[in-house]
């Protein structure tokens, strides 16, 4: 999923940033650029902060 349309950042890239230690939306922006421009994707970033990484079904 493309989370940050301004910078074309995907949910995978955000998950990697979180796995690398980012624990706030500001830290995610610093790590990968998501949410750094208009900031209108921060709600999704907050949702991703509460999700264990790598969840797959099937």
């Amino acid at each position, binding site marked *: *999923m*493309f*989370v940050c349309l301004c910078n074309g950042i*995907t*949910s995978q890239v955000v998950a990697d940033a979180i796995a690398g230690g980012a624990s706030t939306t500001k830290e995610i922006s610093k790590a990968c650029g998501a949410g750094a421009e208009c900031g209108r994707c921060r709600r999704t970033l907050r949702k991703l902060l509460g999700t264990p990484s790598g969840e797959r079904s*099937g």
Partner: protein
Amino acid sequence: MSPAPRSHSIVITSDYRVPEPERVWPLLQSRKRELAEIGAQSVLVYTSTHDYGRVMVTILVRSREPIRELLRSRVFFEWFDAVGVEDIPAVFAGEIVKRFEPSPRLDAEAPGVIVAAMASVHDIPMLLDEIGAGLGRFTAAGVRKTWVFRAFDDGHEVMILQELDDEDRARKWIEDPDVAAPWIAGAGVGAYPPVFIGKFFDMMRIEE
């Protein structure tokens, strides 16, 4: 001189909540020219049957632009502004990989209910095999069509669009999904929206 990049078909879908769902369709129609400029060929709108204000919009685009450039287009931002969406939702971008459409039953002429889900699965080719092998069960459960889309940015990500006979069967399908429908459990996780249950509202074709 390097050759111009080839155009490719992209399915772009987003699922979000708007304050006034009745404004979505006229606003889309008023943006036909802008949509044509980014290579949009058709736009489909689905509205939730049980969740007022929730809509799912799918745009089929043919473009030479890389997907990231396409999504940065002002058309999308202006669109979200126009319909009153402040928090921009995550967007699925991918392509169709398989359509499962068993012969229509004579008693299935009434418009069906759409169940859509985006999720991460272990193995997409295996999933296609499992759906193919389970089609008899799908049909018995009221599933008329299953369309599988694969994301460009993630080799595990799918969007599955299904048409079922009616709302009751759609709810049963979600509450107790078939073993070959693991994506239902994966919807709502992380950036993925919860399973969408709705009806096809309208479709707009856009001339090039």
